[in-house]
């Protein structure tokens, strides 16, 4: 690992100022993604601003919402009583990610910001527009088994690897951001971006901006939820495809639904059209199958990931069935 300067920030203001004015400075939270990338020479900050002393760990519920501090640990969120009671989908998604040790280190802000696991991004001997803009996309014609089927561009077909993000996009979370120009909020669905011509940019956070919290407004999705993750081994592996499903049922009638997929796009992929098709319908495998087909419209596979075109809809049906309790 290259040498770098390490600074422990004691206030949010200094953390932001230090990172905003220095092109080579980065925040470090749990370090589980950044230290990995630094060891491999993929990310090479010359200044690390440690934000762990900032008071951003709290998880609290104010009127009508849960607010989760950006430094809350993934394990702490997954075990938090408020979260388990009101947003169990989020707890399920978190527990499906990484390992117990990693969840004890990883923070909510860091999880949102984690970079893709595309092998071409990881291999510095290979072309990758995300790591080295202009060098080409190795995955496009290469080994693209883990890659996107939605929203990709000819510059990048990588996927966002986070499980937590899939639940947060389904739950219509809001991201709270503090920056050199003041505070702002961004709907979670607009936080991450599609690759387009700028695959090096995973999200819409500006230089020096700090995620301070994520908020989820209370919703009726606290009972019939399921996070289904399909991967190469039973645990401790990234998703090939994942589905976050939440139903609001009145008897057998679907009053509301939230549906999102992971492992299929450069950002957590919300399935709005499928949701629309489900509202007002009666719970049944056939209804879920129809919605899954709508969800997959526009999907396109590459040489090694076409299996996702079949696995995707099947996963949607399974997740909805489990959420509805009709397995």
């Amino acid at each position, binding site marked *: 690992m290259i*040498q*770098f300067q390490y600074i422990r920030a004691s206030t949010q203001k200094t953390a932001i100022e230090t990172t905003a004015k220095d092109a080579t400075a980065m925040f470090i939270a749990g370090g589980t993604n950044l230290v990995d990338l630094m*060891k491999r020479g993929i990310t090479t900050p010359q*200044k690390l601003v440690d934000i762990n002393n900032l008071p951003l760990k709290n998880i609290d519920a104010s009127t009508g919402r849960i607010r989760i501090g950006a430094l809350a640990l993934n394990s702490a969120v997954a075990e938090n009583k408020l979260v388990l009671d009101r947003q169990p989908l989020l707890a399920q998604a978190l527990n499906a990610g990484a*390992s117990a040790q990693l969840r004890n280190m990883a923070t909510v802000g860091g999880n949102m910001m984690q970079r893709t696991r595309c092998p071409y991004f990881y291999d510095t001997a290979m072309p990758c527009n995300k790591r080295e803009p202009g060098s080409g996309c190795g995955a496009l014609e290469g080994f693209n088994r883990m890659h996107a089927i939605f929203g990709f561009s000819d510059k990048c077909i990588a996927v966002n690897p986070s499980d937590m993000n899939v639940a947060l996009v389904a739950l219509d979370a809001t991201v709270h951001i503090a920056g050199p120009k003041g505070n702002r909020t961004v709907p979670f669905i607009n936080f991450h971006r599609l690759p387009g011509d700028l695959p090096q940019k995973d999200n819409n956070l500006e230089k020096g901006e700090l995620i301070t919290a994520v908020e989820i407004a209370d919703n009726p999705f606290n009972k019939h939820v399921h996070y289904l993750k399909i991967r190469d081994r039973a645990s401790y592996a990234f998703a090939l495809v994942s589905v976050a499903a939440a139903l609001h049922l009145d008897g057998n009638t679907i009053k509301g639904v939230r549906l999102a997929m992971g492992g299929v796009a450069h950002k957590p992929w919300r399935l709005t059209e499928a949701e629309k098709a489900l509202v007002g319908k009666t719970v049944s495998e056939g209804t879920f199958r129809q919605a899954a087909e709508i969800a997959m419209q526009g999907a396109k596979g590459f040489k090694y990931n076409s299996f996702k075109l079949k696995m995707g809809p099947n996963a949607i049906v399974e997740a909805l069935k489990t959420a509805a309790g009709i397995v």
Partner: protein
Amino acid sequence: MAEKKACSLPGDQASSNESRRDFLKQSSLLTAFAITPGVVVKAAESKWDEGIAASLEKMPLKLEINGVKQSLQVEPRVTLLDLLREQLALTGTKKGCDYGQCGACTVHVDGQRVLSCLTLAVMAEGKKVTTIEGLATGEQLHPMQAAFIKHDGFQCGYCTPGQIMSAVACIKEGHANSEAEIREFMSGNICRCGAYPNIVDAIMEVKQGGQQI
């Protein structure tokens, strides 16, 4: 010839020996620019001794390891794993992958299991670290260590310190209530010898034994 010219510095009166030294200085300065920021570059610019530069790059670090207070100097890029193994000769904690993928380096920081290979040592400032060396009480093995021996929870033993540290935490966290739960919450510890069934048995026994762990 051309090469020699490129090496020699303006003036050319300097002895060949001296110009070689200047060349080395200059080229190491360039390398320093390429790979290191901050103090080392400054030190090279102002022709400080590299030894001084290195010591300036180190940071003071106070933490407690297995009950012993340590006051150390470390470079920010040193991981907790390398600090334990290379600087403190606590080689019980193993380096399997060095990238967070195997769990061999699992230690407890303030009672929580974490991966020491992805922890920068400077980020453990003021914390209490427990490694496999800190688990036993004198000659008395920790119940989990004893259970691993009894149940043959290993073959080559390389993953074992990490497995044991993780297993202790798994019970303390309340994630050892069934075989399935143990398997899920121990999935961050890979065993290439495949001792998994015996590891699960060892954890089940300690959990059911209800001993103080």
